[in-house]
């Protein structure tokens, strides 16, 4: 036992800032990542990728590559297509017509799309031979802009006849009436949320092994939602889902972007099948990752109109949104509904109308990332509230206070039927203002303005909706065969009395092993160090459900609920058994640790039995156990079912997520008058994720998410040139944030326990969007007097310089205020 374990406060382990137990292993290089595995007979796969964004494939000649040293096979897109079914599409109608094969067949649709795959004895041999594959392309006009995509002058998927893959109207309340009665109407022209990715430390990796005897396929991969990937792979490969074995070990970060790797998995599987079942490994390079793994959704907001009463309270918003999902929809069009989890953001307005369209383009396909689909929408709402505040002369803090949902209104039902569990946004704002020194900065701002300096304070209110209801997919496709949310866990007392937790989750730095141990420790009253935790997805050796994966900010709710449920079941079995052995009533028993390790004792006596004794009775020495106790297995599985119903598909109404963590950030920024660089002078981050299971892990998540958000707001941008070449496919060009860019963070918290989770926790970790709104708001405050409207989520010294010069490539939107009565 580790004697350094901190003493529990008030006898509780949950809520303690325990250090992550996985850290030691990971920082010492003892983690096990896909790249670490070297299997007998393993082969290496190298993709040949398209240099074009949009081109017809006229000829693929693999003859030279096939005869290169060490090469065993070269697969072309056409060959792969002959052996698999196209992947199923989630969307109906237009999207349903999209044909998505694991490699390009007739034409390429984004730069970096695989057109062939070389399999060789070594990685070097595969790489050398890949250069010998000859492909003739005929360049086509690329579709690179969502608004131009709507014109259908060039089609990404010809058979679709249109670049639109999904369209829906969302309307709630009485929008027209609200506009008729409005005291003020603010119109805002085009705004744009830019494309960025996730920059995990580890890129994607796969080892696929086909078993010719069982006709099954085993994947060891970085995929962070394996249960989902299996549902796509099974029909494509023509094998039963039970013939697909998924396994994951340590994963070096993901942030959502590793969910959609099933095309690469399919190619590796086919290669292994073709080569008699030899394991086939593919390790993605950073450039491949940047070009062709997945990006976040890009979204354009048009024709926005906002109705407000005379006090600046928003009564209605209407707008037109165009989401660009890149070349293939894949996880989409789920993003077309997922934003609606936070439809009104932190605000009280009841009337809302949006015309939502999703288009395909000749860019990398998108995948969930960093606050998937909600961040685009929250950014939009935050721009709206911020611009309205400035236009109407209402201070931005006051503007928010007038519009926030009040704390006494929780649980709060949104116009589209989502139920916000708990929160206190006004109090969070107050805490953040205190942390950042709001009043002092306001004074300094006055003085700075007199000196001609551009200094601004910005607020960002963000919701991190967690534990999604898959039933929302029905709003996209009424026939989608899934709904709700579940997680499974198993807690057992093993044969020598060790407590073992199996949870089949897919952690990538979220500390699941640590919090799982805390929860079980709490139930059994033993230190977390005595609890063995086995995470990692494994269809053969670990528990899972069809929802298992790490996504949608939910582990603290779904994962820990499952673990808690299983631990309670085990505790009940242990109590029953111990009562029999100790000849006592269950109510007289007490759990704890004695001289012989974890034990159960009769309160106030020295009569006890340790875990080894109990396990022995069930597993080894069971003649002593009466028959009526034969149902005790000490091996307890629990499946957590989230309390959801299927939403009303027609009205697009229903509860889409269970918990609503919130982030309130404030930035004080100054635009340097010589370099035009936006500099962060002070930054406060206040987080409310309900009851914290481990405050240290929460703080780590807040720091990481904030860094990602600052990077996204000021540095990261997936830039394509007019031919569709990605100009930011290396880290030298993409510039992920480093510690040299990070301001000091003043972190604070508030805990409004969720009434919907057993532990009061809310899922968290996807608050990564918060700095995007916050930084844009601070820049708006700094630049409003210079007639600049912040209309893009990415701002750099360069773009601010050009905006101030009035020669910006993307001019600012027209903003108009109609003041009535």
């Amino acid at each position, binding site marked *: 036992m580790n004697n350094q374990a901190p003493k529990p406060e008030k006898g509780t382990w949950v809520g303690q800032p325990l250090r992550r137990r996985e850290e030691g292993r990971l920082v010492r290089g003892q983690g096990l990542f896909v790249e670490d595995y070297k299997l007998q007979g393993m082969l290496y796969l190298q993709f040949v990728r398209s240099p074009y964004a949009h081109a017809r494939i006229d000829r693929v000649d693999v003859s030279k590559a096939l005869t290169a040293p060490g090469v065993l096979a070269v697969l072309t897109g056409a060959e792969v297509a002959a052996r698999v079914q196209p992947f199923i599409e989630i969307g109906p109608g237009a999207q349903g017509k999209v044909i998505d094969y694991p490699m390009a067949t007739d034409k390429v649709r984004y730069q970096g799309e695989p057109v062939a795959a070389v399999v060789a004895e070594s990685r070097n041999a595969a790489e050398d031979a890949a250069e010998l594959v000859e492909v003739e392309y005929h360049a086509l006009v690329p579709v690179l802009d969502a608004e131009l995509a709507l014109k259908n002058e060039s089609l990404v998927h010809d058979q679709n006849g249109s670049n639109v893959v999904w369209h829906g109207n969302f309307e709630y309340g009485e929008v027209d009436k609200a506009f008729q009665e409005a005291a003020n109407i603010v119109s805002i022209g085009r705004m744009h949320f830019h494309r960025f990715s996730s920059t995990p430390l580890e890129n994607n990796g796969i080892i696929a092994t086909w078993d010719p005897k069982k006709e099954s396929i085993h994947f060891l991969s970085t995929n962070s939602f394996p249960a989902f990937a299996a549902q796509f792979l099974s029909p494509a490969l023509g094998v039963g889902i039970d013939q697909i074995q998924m396994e994951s070990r340590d994963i070096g970060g993901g942030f959502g972007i590793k969910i959609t790797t099933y095309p690469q998995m399919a190619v590796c599987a086919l290669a292994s099948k073709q080569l008699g079942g030899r394991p086939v490994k593919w390790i993605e390079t950073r450039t491949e990752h940047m070009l062709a793994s997945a990006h976040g959704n890009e979204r354009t907001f048009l024709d926005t109109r906002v109705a407000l009463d005379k006090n600046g309270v928003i009564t209605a918003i209407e707008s037109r949104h165009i989401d660009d999902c890149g070349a293939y929809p894949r996880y989409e069009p789920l993003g077309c509904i997922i934003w609606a989890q936070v439809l009104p953001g932190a605000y009280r307005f009841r009337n809302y109308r949006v015309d939502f369209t999703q288009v395909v383009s000749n860019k990398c396909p998108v995948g969930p990332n960093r606050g998937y689909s909600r961040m685009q929408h929250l950014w939009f709402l935050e721009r709206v509230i911020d611009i309205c505040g400035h236009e109407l002369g209402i201070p931005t803090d006051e503007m928010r206070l007038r519009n926030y949902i009040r704390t006494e209104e929780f649980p709060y039902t949104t116009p589209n039927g989502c139920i916000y569990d708990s929160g206190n946004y006004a109090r969070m704002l107050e805490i953040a203002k205190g942390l950042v020194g709001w009043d002092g900065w306001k004074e300094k701002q006055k003085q700075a303005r007199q000196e001609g300096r551009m200094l601004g304070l910005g607020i960002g209110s963000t919701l991190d909706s967690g534990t999604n209801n898959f039933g929302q997919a029905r709003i996209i496709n009424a026939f989608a065969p899934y709904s709700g949310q579940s997680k499974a866990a198993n807690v057992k007392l093993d044969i020598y009395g060790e407590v073992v937790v199996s949870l089949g989750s897919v952690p990538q730095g979220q500390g699941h092993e640590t919090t799982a141990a805390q929860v079980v420790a709490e139930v059994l009253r033993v230190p977390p160090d005595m609890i063995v935790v086995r995470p990692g997805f494994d269809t053969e050796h670990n528990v899972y459900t069809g929802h298992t994966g790490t996504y949608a900010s939910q582990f603290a709710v779904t994962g820990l609920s499952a673990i808690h449920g299983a631990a309670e079941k085990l505790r009940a079995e242990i109590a029953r058994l111990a009562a029999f052995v100790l000849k006592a009533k269950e109510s007289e028993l007490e759990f704890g640790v004695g001289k012989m390790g974890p034990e159960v004792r009769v309160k106030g006596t020295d009569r006890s039995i340790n875990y080894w004794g109990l396990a022995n009775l069930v597993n080894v020495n069971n003649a002593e156990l009466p028959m009526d106790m034969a149902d005790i297995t000490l091996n307890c599985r629990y499946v957590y079912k989230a309390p959801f119903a299927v939403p009303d598909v027609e009205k697009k109404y229903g509860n889409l997520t269970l918990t609503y963590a919130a982030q309130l950030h404030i930035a004080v920024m100054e635009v340097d008058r010589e*370099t035009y660089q936006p500099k962060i002078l002070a930054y406060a981050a206040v987080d409310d994720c309900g009851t914290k299971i481990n405050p240290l892990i929460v703080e780590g998540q807040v720091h990481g998410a904030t860094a990602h958000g600052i990077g996204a707001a000021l540095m990261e941008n997936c830039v394509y040139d007019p031919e569709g070449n990605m100009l930011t496919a290396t880290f030298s060009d993409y*510039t992920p944030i*480093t510690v040299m860019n990070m301001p000091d963070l003043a972190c604070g918290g508030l805990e409004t326990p969720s009434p919907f989770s057993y532990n009061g926790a809310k899922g968290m970790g996807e608050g990564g969007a918060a700095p995007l709104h916050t930084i844009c708001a601070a820049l708006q405050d700094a630049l409003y007097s210079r007639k600049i409207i912040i209309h893009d989520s990415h701002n750099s*010294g360069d773009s601010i310089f050009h905006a101030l010069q009035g020669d910006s490539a993307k001019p600012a939107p027209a903003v108009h205020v109609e003041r009535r009565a």
Partner: protein
Amino acid sequence: MSPYPFHYHRAHTLAEAVTLLAQLGGEGQLLAGGQSLIPLMKLRLARPGALVDLNFVPGLSAIDEHSGEIRMGAMARHAALEDSELVARVPILHDCAAGIADSQVRNMGTIGGSVAEADPSGDWVAVLLTLGAQVRCTGPQGERIMPVSDFVTDAYTTMLGPAEIVQEIRVKLPPAKSGGAFIAFKRCASVYASASAAVQLTLGDGDICRDIHIALGCVGLTAVVPIAAQDALRGKPVSAKSIENAADAAMAAAEPQSDMRGSADYKRVLVRAVVKRAIDIAARRARGERVEAGHEYVARV
């Protein structure tokens, strides 16, 4: 992400390295810290048939004071220069060494490799130009030494003959009342600057600028020496006005190109800003003030 096959030779003396290079003809290429060469090889943009490794040649990384000069062996790592007390006596050298990329790159990359690579975005050449540094080379024809201004002739191009090796960089210790500063604007730690300015100036009586050397990095095919900017200060008092004039002249001399590090227009703006700051800090240091300078990054103050 793996290079084409190549042969590897380990040199144990400078003479052996010269001989190896001569034998290999065009095939051979020196390997110093590998921080420019290896990425290029892994991206398959460079394809040397053979590498001659300088990392095992003793004595090539010494940093010494000699006859009023700092002599930096070609294999002196950026990190060693950053940590050197001798180098810190010439603050502009320390500014440069401490801000190159991140510590992994600084632990491997060398001053000799940087000068030989002559990357237009590299930091060292601009800094060394303002100090009138000399580059000592050794080749089959023996030794020669030349000012860095002659050594670098174009982007990625130097006076080095085939089989010739940079052996040492020499910098005269600046006189009293001389100060310098290097300011580079970077987006994040592990990338090259968008624009940089190196300034070394010497003050005379009454805060008159007796002598000044300015060089701009990243805004031309080689480091740009803005003559008019130097003239705007030389012989004149260092004042807000004269600094402005020099910065304007430097901006006019810059010939940047648009790329992911910034548009050409914007890089000119950056040049103006970094030159102003570098002159200001150089002058304050010349007056004996201790001021921090170096690399600036996006977001953080």
